[in-house]
């Protein structure tokens, strides 16, 4: 519509279209916006939490609503690693390698208490006490295992973080 019905003042139709359809932003912001709304997690389950991660992809919780359902079997196509489960000493080098294979920019969610701190197995001789000893973790998601809703919340938290890198930097150093 080219006419503003309130004051019947004529508006240039081109200007109207410009107002409606063009957003001025920086390239960085646009890229962050795109990234934040479509993470591609790597299909990588370690333990119990992986089953809840699968459940999050199921019909009930349906993370496809948020655009995060594209689980990639290859780390080279993924930009998000959900560390879902206990990292053991035998597995730790491989987790690291999978992370290294992912292209930048990449993010890590530590899902469940094992990935945060070793959880109930923190005293064990074969368990790494937390994913953050080997990976840069972006979001910590507590629970044993966390519910699928909690995983969605973690993904949304990560979305905010990716969309507003400066705010996060100021708030958390």
């Amino acid at each position, binding site marked *: 519509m080219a006419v503003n019905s309130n004051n019947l003042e004529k508006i240039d139709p081109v200007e109207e279209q410009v107002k409606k359809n063009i957003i001025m932003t920086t390239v960085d912001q646009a890229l962050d916006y795109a990234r934040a709304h479509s993470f591609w997690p790597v299909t990588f389950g370690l333990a119990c939490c992986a089953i809840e991660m699968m459940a999050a992809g199921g019909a009930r919780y349906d993370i496809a609503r948020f655009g995060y359902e594209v689980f990639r079997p290859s780390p080279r196509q993924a930009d998000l690693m959900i560390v879902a489960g206990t990292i053991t000493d035998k597995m730790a080098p491989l987790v690291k390698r999978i992370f290294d294979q992912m292209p930048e920019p990449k993010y890590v969610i530590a899902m469940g208490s094992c990935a945060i701190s070793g959880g109930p197995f923190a*005293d064990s*001789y074969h368990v790494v*006490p937390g994913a953050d000893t080997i990976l840069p973790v972006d979001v910590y998601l507590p629970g044993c295992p966390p519910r699928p809703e909690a995983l969605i919340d973690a993904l949304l938290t990560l979305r905010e973080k990716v969309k507003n890198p400066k705010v996060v930097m100021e708030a958390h150093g």
Partner: protein
Amino acid sequence: MDKTTSLEEIITLLVEKYEGRLERVEDSLDAAIRVKDQLFFQVAKELKEEHGLDFLTDLTALDLGEGKFRGIYHLMSWKPYRLLRIEVDASGEEPWLPSITELWPAANVQEREVFDMFGIIYDGHPNLTRILLSEDFEGHPLRKSYVTKSRRK
């Protein structure tokens, strides 16, 4: 030998046959016998082939402290259902037990697990290597002498 003989009869028979080298474990909740390690393979074979206890359901070990170890075996037959525990004391500086992989392929992975966790050598095992832990792991974690260092932050 009838394959449906009761466990009590089998145990009595074995105790008589191998007097002094095989004994009944008294006051046990499950039927159990204790065998000397040299005799164990022979007894296991006899139980499998003559008494119908032909299913190895579980194989593990126990640390008795002071460097002594005991192999624990659970044999069973499905029909009629019978479950027998065999306890074998491992002797020697380096504890060892005869391998029963030949009788039950099921023992293969379980013996490897016990080797991994307790360091018990199974004589005659085709591939006695660590199974759960990596090759460069030091020590055998389920030994009582193994102390876990806490790595909590």
